[in-house]
């Protein structure tokens, strides 16, 4: 073994480097010539957008940490100091604060894309599972970040969420004590949350790397959900998808900027501008919007352990999704029964979000329970059965020569007709 890599780069400096450590060759292979299905629609932007969001969060977070003080007596004031006295501190903090929301929006769309086009199915099960791990890591990171400003919602949110672990039989209380570093949410809690909030994004970065590695082994799924069969089905990643992703990044930044500059507190809760006070419980304790659906599931079960189990179950069920869905067809486009169900799912999650934002009384309790039941029904009952009941539409022959199933008998296009997949913009 050993010996230099045979680099094909002409530039002598790059060639010298690449021969000894072929990162240029690797980048060229994975992001330059990487064969990518030619028929992506704009839903396929959201993975890249999540990557951009992660980088923005890490960069702003590093600068915030330079000016933040993780001490219960000083945390709130240090955030205000960042807002008022640090050069462009308000910009860094508002970008970080709203960046969390943008990150979750992008990731939720990314997940929905996976559900709709069956991106979790063989051979991409591991890719999907790593993605669910990323979601869990993101949630933990976001939750701990929300605690750091040490406002009322920080404190009481931390109290409620950490207390959930006490529902675990036998070891629950010990876990809570460990999380708190004491017997209530206090300075040790803030310190460990700050430490972990700084650590986890780098863990996320590492797992994102694994996510991309797994992706580049199997290759991307595509809107037709059929395998790449020939080089005609693909385009090199660069320049086709680098430029298409750039369009998405611009639109993403535009939405992000409107939020940061014109409505920076729209998605936050006003109570978090009141310094934490252990002696005064807010009228309502609500988590950030991206946790509301799970919060609604938690509250729709009148039993603590049951609620906690269902709440975590709502995410854990995604781990086994590749085996719950029994249909061999990936894309919902060719699954007439699955399609309405997968479109109803985000509506159900939205309803859960609304339920989570309201006091659990009256109609909200009923809605919360119905929506919770539907959520689990979808994954645990409907999906396994649909695959058996459903008769999928005929699949196209290949990506580059798709049949148009809605318009005709299902044969390939006549020779000479221009290949025009309808999903291309």
């Amino acid at each position, binding site marked *: 073994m050993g010996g230099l890599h045979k680099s094909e780069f002409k530039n002598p400096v790059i060639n010298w480097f690449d021969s000894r450590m072929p990162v240029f060759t690797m980048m060229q292979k994975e992001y330059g010539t990487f064969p990518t299905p030619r028929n992506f629609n704009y839903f396929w932007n959201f993975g890249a957008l999540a990557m951009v969001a992660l980088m923005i969060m890490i960069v702003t977070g590093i600068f915030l940490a330079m000016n933040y003080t993780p001490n219960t007596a000083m945390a709130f004031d240090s955030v205000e100091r960042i807002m008022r006295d640090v050069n462009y501190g308000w910009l860094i903090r508002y970008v970080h604060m709203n960046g969390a929301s943008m990150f979750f929006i992008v990731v939720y769309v990314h997940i929905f894309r996976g559900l709709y086009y069956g991106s979790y199915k063989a051979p991409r099960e591991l890719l999907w599972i790593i993605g669910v791990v990323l979601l869990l890591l993101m949630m933990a990171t976001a939750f701990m970040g929300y605690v750091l400003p040490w406002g009322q919602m920080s404190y009481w949110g931390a109290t409620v969420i950490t207390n959930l672990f006490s529902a675990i039989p036998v070891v629950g209380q010990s876990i809570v004590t460990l999380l708190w570093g004491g017997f209530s949410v206090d300075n040790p809690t803030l310190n460990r949350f700050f430490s972990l909030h700084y650590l986890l994004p780098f863990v996320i970065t590492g797992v994102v790397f694994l996510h991309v590695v797994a992706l580049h082994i199997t290759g991307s799924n595509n809107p037709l959900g059929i395998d790449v069969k020939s080089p005609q089905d693909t385009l090199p990643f660069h320049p086709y998808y680098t430029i298409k992703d750039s*369009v998405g990044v611009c639109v993403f930044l535009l939405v992000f*900027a409107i939020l940061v*500059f014109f409505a920076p507190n*729209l998605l936050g809760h006003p109570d978090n501008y009141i310094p934490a006070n252990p002696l005064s419980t807010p009228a309502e304790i609500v988590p950030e919007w991206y946790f509301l659906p799970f919060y609604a599931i938690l509250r729709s079960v009148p039993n603590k352990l049951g609620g906690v189990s269902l709440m975590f179950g709502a995410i854990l069920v995604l781990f086994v999704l590749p085996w719950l869905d029994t249909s061999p067809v990936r894309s919902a486009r060719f699954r007439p029964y699955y399609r309405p169900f997968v479109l109803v799912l985000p509506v159900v999650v939205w309803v859960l979000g609304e339920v989570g934002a309201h006091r659990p009384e009256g109609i*909200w309790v009923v809605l919360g329970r119905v929506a919770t039941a539907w959520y689990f029904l979808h994954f645990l009952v409907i999906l396994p059965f649909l695959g058996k009941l459903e008769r999928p539409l005929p699949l196209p022959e290949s990506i580059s020569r798709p049949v148009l199933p809605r318009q005709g008998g299902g044969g390939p296009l006549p020779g000479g007709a221009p290949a025009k997949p309808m999903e*291309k913009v």
Partner: protein
Amino acid sequence: MRFGLLAVLGLVAIGPAAMAQTAEPPAPPAQNWSFDGIFGTFDRASAQRGFQVYQSVCASCHSMKQLYYRNLTGIGLSEDQIKSIAASVQVPGALGDDGQPTERPGLPSDHFKSPFANDLAARAANGGALPPDQSVLELAREDGANYIYALMNGYKEPPAGIKMGAGMYYNEYFPGHQIAMPQPLHDDQVEYADGTKATIAQEAHDVVTFLTFAANPELEARHAMGVRIVLFLVFMTGLTYAVKRKVWADVH
């Protein structure tokens, strides 16, 4: 959470939800603010009058710890004005040569002086209620500016049948309707230096403008930068999309 309700949900929910929340105060009516909108700025004259109201009324009970006197340049006060405002209070100085605490006149680099030494003293002087710090009060209330304005104008005689707690006042817009703060603003409570007639509505409008400045001193810079960045991003989006079309032309 400020979520738009699904129309369907709203229809379904309206009956029971409305009944369950009779104790909730009405939503404060929206006012016209100079700082609203993407080009919003602080009306300097109003903010300065508001500072006058703050100083002569609010500041006797409410602290505003996050602000420095120097921040008042943001509402258009001159350096000299700020120096004299700061010098009108005594703040703790460095320890004297004898090791004893000293006092000195305030400087523009000092934080706003709090009316009470600590929260306990504030409670003791206010019948057990703690007047909240006003630095970020506008952000710490749902629809802050409109809410504070409505609260200032919301004092009324308690309706028949409502039993008021000792030392509590009836306010239409306060959650639970019983507030420990007596009505702070009255007609001609202050005499405006610029001759504006000091009605309750005028005073409330001015003080809310000042409080919004206090909570969002970056607002004007944020709006100005936002407009430029959004314009730039719109341009970049168009440009990138055009390049994308060109790159993809041979594929389509």
